[in-house]
């Protein structure tokens, strides 16, 4: 277990160290917003947690930024950071899965598609898991499954609430049925959390699909999502190929799911922390 601390509060308008990598990789200091098609100064976007200051469109943020945003002072203790997949299938496609993992680890700076952490949200200790979509599409294999199961066990041991922020294309193909069984493993662990009457808030962000939606992402005491997030079981392309027709406008977006009774609320990113805080006050006093 190691402690990370931000030097500055998240709202301070100074360049952040972790932005350096992003800036070098991209063309310039400007970015076109997917929502309003306006050119936005990148720093303005990042200082606003990637919510467009003009139109409010949410673009993705990484797992670590999510934790800094939700936890007091951006401070958290990470768990199981050195849990790596042993490639149970010896899976090889264009390159060995093992090599791919090593490359993605290097590129993203995380050990797998999730960061498991403990921190305080408005003074309340919580266990929180934040998924990293840049890590093989945020896919769930044995490491993601184990980190979440352990986080649930920690929540039970310490009697704290649990928050999981999902951003995943589903189970990880390269770990085959091992990935599939993580759905059952985590859901069973959530059964125990449920029996222990400890709160679990599931936050669904863009995108949350496949085996992640069909297990822990839909099992919160509250299931809440960010505006415009793609959420579903089957991916839109799979559905289009199956039914051979175009999908309706807004299909599988967070607002669509609320309309069909599948989510408790759509919560804008900048209101997420106060929302969860209020919910936990209701659940746990």
């Amino acid at each position, binding site marked *: 277990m190691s402690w990370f601390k931000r030097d500055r509060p998240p709202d301070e308008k100074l360049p952040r160290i972790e932005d350096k990598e992003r800036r070098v990789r991209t063309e310039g200091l400007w970015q076109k917003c997917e929502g309003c098609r306006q050119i936005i100064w990148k720093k303005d976007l990042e200082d606003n947690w990637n919510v467009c200051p003009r139109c409010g469109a949410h673009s993705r943020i990484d797992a670590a930024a999510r934790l800094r945003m939700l936890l007091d002072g951006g401070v958290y203790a990470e768990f199981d950071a050195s849990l790596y997949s042993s490639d149970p299938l010896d899976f090889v496609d264009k390159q060995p899965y093992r090599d791919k993992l090593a490359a993605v680890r290097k590129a993203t700076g995380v050990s797998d598609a999730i960061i498991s952490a403990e921190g305080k949200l408005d003074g309340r200790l919580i266990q929180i898991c934040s998924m990293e979509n840049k890590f093989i599409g945020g896919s769930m294999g044995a490491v993601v*499954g184990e980190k979440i199961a352990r986080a649930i066990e920690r929540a039970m041991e310490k009697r704290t609430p649990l928050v999981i922020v999902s951003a995943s294309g589903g*189970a990880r193909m390269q770990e085959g049925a091992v990935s599939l069984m993580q759905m*059952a*493993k985590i*859901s069973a662990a959530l059964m125990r959390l449920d029996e222990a009457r400890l709160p679990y808030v599931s936050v669904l962000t863009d995108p949350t699909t496949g085996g992640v939606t069909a297990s822990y*992402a839909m099992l919160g005491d509250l299931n809440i999502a960010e505006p415009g997030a793609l959420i579903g079981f089957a991916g839109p392309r799979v559905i289009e190929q199956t039914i051979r027709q175009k*999908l309706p406008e807004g299909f599988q977006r967070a607002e669509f799911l609320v309309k069909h009774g*599948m989510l408790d609320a759509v919560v804008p990113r900048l209101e997420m922390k106060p929302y969860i805080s209020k919910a936990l006050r209701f659940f746990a006093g």
Partner: protein
Amino acid sequence: MRVNPEPESDACAVAVEPHPAWLRVLLARHAKRPHSLDYISRLIAGFEEVHGDRSFADDPAIVAGFGFFEDRPVMVVAEQKGRNTKQKLYRNFGMPKPEGYRKALRVMQMAAKFGRPVITLLDTPGAYPGIDAEERGQAEAIARNLREMSRLPVPVVAVCIGEGGSGGALALGVGNIVLMLENAVYSVISPESCAAIIYRDSAKAEQAAAALRLTAEDLLGLGLIDGIVPEPPGGAHEDPDAAAESLREHLRLRLDELAAYDGPALVDHRYAKFRKMGNFFA
């Protein structure tokens, strides 16, 4: 068996045996392979099907009902494929919708209420990927089944009899004992979809089938299932009666074994089993 299709090639045409994993995929999907109702009719006396999720509809892709397995009252929940075109359409090719999973959960909880064991039969290409299924919460229905099956205080024996198509199969698969028929496959993704992702060519499904480790031996080796039910020579379709008798032996053995546990012990047993799945860490 396939033949090298290159006529210009100097080498003589070489007969290529399909990869063993791909053979299993073909057998699991064989046109004459016994489906759930073929086993139910042979193994469950006085089977009465029950219908509906009490909320939206009845889903013919899942057959649920009660009956007697060798005088033992049991609840059976099974995915059902069709044989001819008309049946296939009626059963939606064995692809359940949310109402199917909700019916399954309803009857499993009924079994729990009366202390009866649950036998589930898994045989689906996957949960139905359609607009209506998404609207009614396919993901939520599967997720809820996973969680709720894990707390059923009665014995649950799950058997993958043909195609174990990802979450759509697992939604009935949280058993104290999980078995696979010898030629069944169980996978996180179909070999065709996997090939489409990796090789951008669904025709390379054979290679993908090998890479995915989806045979009964593979899953047993990975610690994901508890046993393999042998099939008659050539596969279950060659002798459905013998296949059913083989399954009967295994079901009897496993139900006897689980009869020794009380409700809480069954829940703990099931939890411990799934909790240790996937301990593959470097």
